[in-house]
């Protein structure tokens, strides 16, 4: 019985030991300025059973934010994977790569902080500037309408004051003629 327990312990320890060894970060990650604004992220898996690599970056914009996935790549025959990434913010940014095995198990991981200097945001101006109703044709329309309103007011007030001014004058003339 004791023997059996000892064997079980050894087996358990060896499994744990092997899993610890596997979890150790054996991968590597490098970030270099690529062509234009993009960055090249490349990493190599220290083990032979890696199949895919997932790359992450971490924004410091929100408190409590974590690494966000920025791309995935297949690991080539020499255990390397790389992606091109166009950053969307500048400053010291932690990058990370996770190498995964066939079953999706984590084999290797590595982090690196890189100072991003260029961030050509993909945000187009057109997404902000919507044409308001009065931007082009509407403005002309409004001016025409306001002119019409002004003319109506002028006519109304003009005819009113015409009567108010002319009628007493005409009365005066008429009584003078008499």
């Amino acid at each position, binding site marked *: 019985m004791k023997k059996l327990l000892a064997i079980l312990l050894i087996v358990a320890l060896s499994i744990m030991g092997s899993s610890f060894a596997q979890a150790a970060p054996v991968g590597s990650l490098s970030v270099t300025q690529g062509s*234009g*604004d993009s960055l090249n992220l490349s990493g190599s898996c220290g083990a032979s059973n890696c199949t895919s690599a*997932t790359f*992450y970056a*971490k*924004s*410091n*914009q*929100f*408190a*409590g*934010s*974590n*690494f*966000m*996935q*920025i*791309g995935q790549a297949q690991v080539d025959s020499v255990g390397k994977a790389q992606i*091109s*990434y*166009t950053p*969307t*913010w500048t400053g010291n940014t932690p990058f*990370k790569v*996770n190498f995964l095995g066939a079953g999706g198990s*984590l084999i290797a*991981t590595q982090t690196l902080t890189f100072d991003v200097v260029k*961030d*050509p*945001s*993909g*945000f*187009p*101006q*057109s*997404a*902000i*500037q*919507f044409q*308001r*109703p009065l931007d082009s044709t509407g403005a002309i329309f409004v001016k025409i309408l306001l002119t019409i309103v002004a003319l109506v007011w002028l006519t109304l007030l003009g005819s009113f004051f015409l009567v108010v001014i002319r009628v007493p004058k005409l009365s005066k003339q008429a009584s003078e003629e008499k």
Partner: protein
Amino acid sequence: MDERVGESGMKLLFNKNQGDINGDSEKTSEVSRRKFLKIVGMSAGSVAAVGAGIELIPYRAWADSNPNGWGGNSGVSGMSAATMGSGQEVGNHQWAMVIDLRNCDGCKSCTAACQKAHYLTEDQTWIRVFEMGDSQGNSYFMPRPCMQCENPPCLDVCPVHATFRTDQGVVLVNQGRCIGCRMCMAACPYQARYFNWKAGAKYPDTGVFPTLKFPVPQRLGTVGKCTFCVGNLNHGLMSECASACPMGTIYNGDMITDVAINSMGNTVKLSKFLYDNDAVAYKDENNTHPRVWYIPGHGQNLDTNATTG
């Protein structure tokens, strides 16, 4: 039924969180995408059943037709700095929101947190959770904040320019100018505007002078609405509703840095997240262009054998 929804919703979350502990926000998107495509159909159908035609415009359709636009179809921008224009009108942030309907269990924590933070009455649900029916006879929940439309109808009809849009893409109300005509409430297709009808109701002296970004306490006789908690966002904090959500349903996002985060700390690349999960804009056929996207479905109740929506 709600409980069931809640439980399975939690399961889904735990799966996600396991990933997050390792700094991993991996989506099992490929597996579930086919499901979600169905949900899009279902949701569109169900909303039509409620009575207003096609109301959901998928983000994917926009991204595919604008490969050079924001996000692009690969989730990686193809926009160059030169075509950005002078950028004067572009603020340093463009706030957005993603609401992952798969997670919402209708607990209304968001509404409660919002009302508490802004000292609102019970009727003033700046973020309101609607219970929606679908074609399968099930129901799902849809939180509805202000959509912060890029082309806001409320802005055009305000007679005194009390509604305006900031350079960060947030539509705000100047309650010091509002005359209380409520034309904006008539124009908003989302019922997202709330008037201050009652005097003295829950408007304590907070010692805070109401500002445009933080209109607390609300002023009697004027219109108020969701501000996206833009003050919080500018300080790296999340909006009240997003941080109060126990399910991580609501994501605050910035379209400039292309990052979105929920209360679980789940951090995603916004454009990629929207594209991969078939996000939709609600009632975009009104030409409103909301800054709030929905990821449709109530995944827990999915009838995967459903043929059509």
